[in-house]
């Protein structure tokens, strides 16, 4: 079960109404609008709660998304690029979020840097399809993954803060 803070954050993300994937030419633009509305609301909420942690944007037809996410560990900010495609079966299946620069650094990842979500995620998504959108994917998929993996990777020295890396190189 999620903790109180996550639960509250997720419950504030508006649910989506349009059941349409990218192959549905007529309804996909409407779904895309709803995705953006929910994402904007989620990001603004995060900012208001002093917990801003990702940005996302898409190509014109909304099938490919790119952005950044960041994680604060011991007062240092670690930033990562993130990307994913909207599968033809969306929103019945969730997109596979990738953090390419971490590829090969953790076992909790499939090739290409696709993050390996907990066994709870797929059922949760399926139960709430098509009302869950990309904002929910961020909140319940990527967020918890980063919270577990990044401190571990930093601890193992597999992720090094960019400025420290530069300092080390300068010495």
């Amino acid at each position, binding site marked *: 079960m*999620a903790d109180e*803070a996550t639960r509250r954050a997720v419950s504030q993300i508006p649910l989506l109404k349009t059941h349409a994937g990218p192959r549905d030419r007529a309804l996909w633009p409407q779904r895309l609008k*709803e995705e953006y509305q929910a994402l904007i609301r989620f990001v603004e909420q995060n900012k208001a709660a002093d917990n801003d942690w990702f*940005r996302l944007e898409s190509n014109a037809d909304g099938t490919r998304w790119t952005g950044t996410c960041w994680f604060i560990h011991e007062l240092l900010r670690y930033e990562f690029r993130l990307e994913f495609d909207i*599968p033809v*079966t969306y929103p019945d299946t969730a997109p596979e979020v990738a953090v390419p620069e971490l590829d090969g650094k953790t076992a909790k990842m499939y090739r290409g840097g696709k993050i390996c979500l907990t066994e709870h*995620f797929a059922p949760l998504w399926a139960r*709430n399809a098509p009302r869950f959108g990309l904002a929910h994917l961020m909140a319940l998929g990527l967020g918890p993954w980063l919270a577990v993996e990044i401190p571990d990777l930093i601890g193992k020295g597999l992720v090094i803060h960019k400025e420290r890396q530069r300092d080390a190189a300068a010495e």
Partner: protein
Amino acid sequence: MATVEELKLRVRELENELIKCKQKQCAMEDALHRPKIDKMSAEVVDSNPYSRLMALKRMGIVDDYEKIRTFTVAVVGVGGVGSVTAEMLTRCGIGKLLLFDYDKVELANMNRLFFQPHQAGLSKVEAAEHTLRNINPDVSFETHNYNITTMENFTHFMDRISHGGLEEGMPVDLVLSCVDNFEARMAINTACNELGQIWMESGVSENAVSGHIQLIIPGETACFACAPPLVVAANIDEKTLKREGVCAASLPTTMGVVAGILVQNVLKYLLKFGTVSYYLGYNAMQDFFPTMAMKANPQCNDHHCRRQQEEYKKKEAERPKVEVVVEEEEVVHEDNEWGIELVSEVTDAELQAATGIVPDLPEGITVAYTIPAEDTAHGETVEETEQSLEELMAQMRKIVQRSQVVEGLSAVWVIGTEHTLTHLQRAGQKNLGCTGESKEIDTRSY
């Protein structure tokens, strides 16, 4: 010091040498390759690669084995199961194989069959085609190195399923799903429902100790979206299953077994012998093989599945009823000293129950999760907006710019964030993934 001219000459010499080497190597490889065989022969000689297969006819197992050369099979996913599946079909002399996979061969794949260490780095479809062509040059190959779930590739994938047969323009005879993820299975399901394409699904569990195969006839049997994913219960307590630091385990044995039962079902289906299984599970822990059949769900989420069901119903109604009288030959053993009897694991009544709308699953098969019956979710939904998509995209981008300004004041901001993030962190360590009661909807067994 050599002059430029001398170096140029040397380069030309080396180039010529390289060409000669390549030619020699090609000649050697050609000598190893057998020529194509026009017609399968049943002659039992050491040099006939089909003699043992054609013997199936003499033994009365298969009526017309040569027919295998007229079939086209598409294998989606050329990993642990797909590569072995493709090899078996190649050795059986299938007419044409279409291979789809976006992945590369990695050393981490070496616990599975088929691929070899020297192929690391090559695309799986390219490496597979090379090996398979060597094994049996009579088979036609078509390979596609892409991810079928993205928009562009999916359209091409659908086109090849419907036109990539042995005779160009004709559909393939069968699609085999040997992929390792839910998204790709759903994509294959979507394509096959739309095209009315018969396919078989296969899978191995992430803990490597169970697997299954399933025959899907759109409109007739349950499609992949008709019910939540089915799983073969491995009778392992989930609590004792450790997932720390790993995504999935795999065994060459389980994958080989699943590829074997998959291709067996393919051969039985294409060459019409024995009983074709609708669903066959494999539980490696107890060596238990549950079977069942499941009808399509009239409330399936996929509207093409529902359309296929309507068409199937119409076809069934039009078909003249023929009383089939099956004469069963009773197998009688001379004596049965120990009183050994065979007892079917699935009774007719059980099978009947399992083919209803509600999948009453037999022992050993469960659903991965359940889906709520009714859309009873309450919670705020997105509001109607006057803004256009472009305006919303621009608004989203504008927030990005604001955040970059904030970064300058990081000290205060960072401390705040650190504090709030610890909540997330704590949640994450508990394998977070559920929204909690507020959104948890009453679940019901399908």
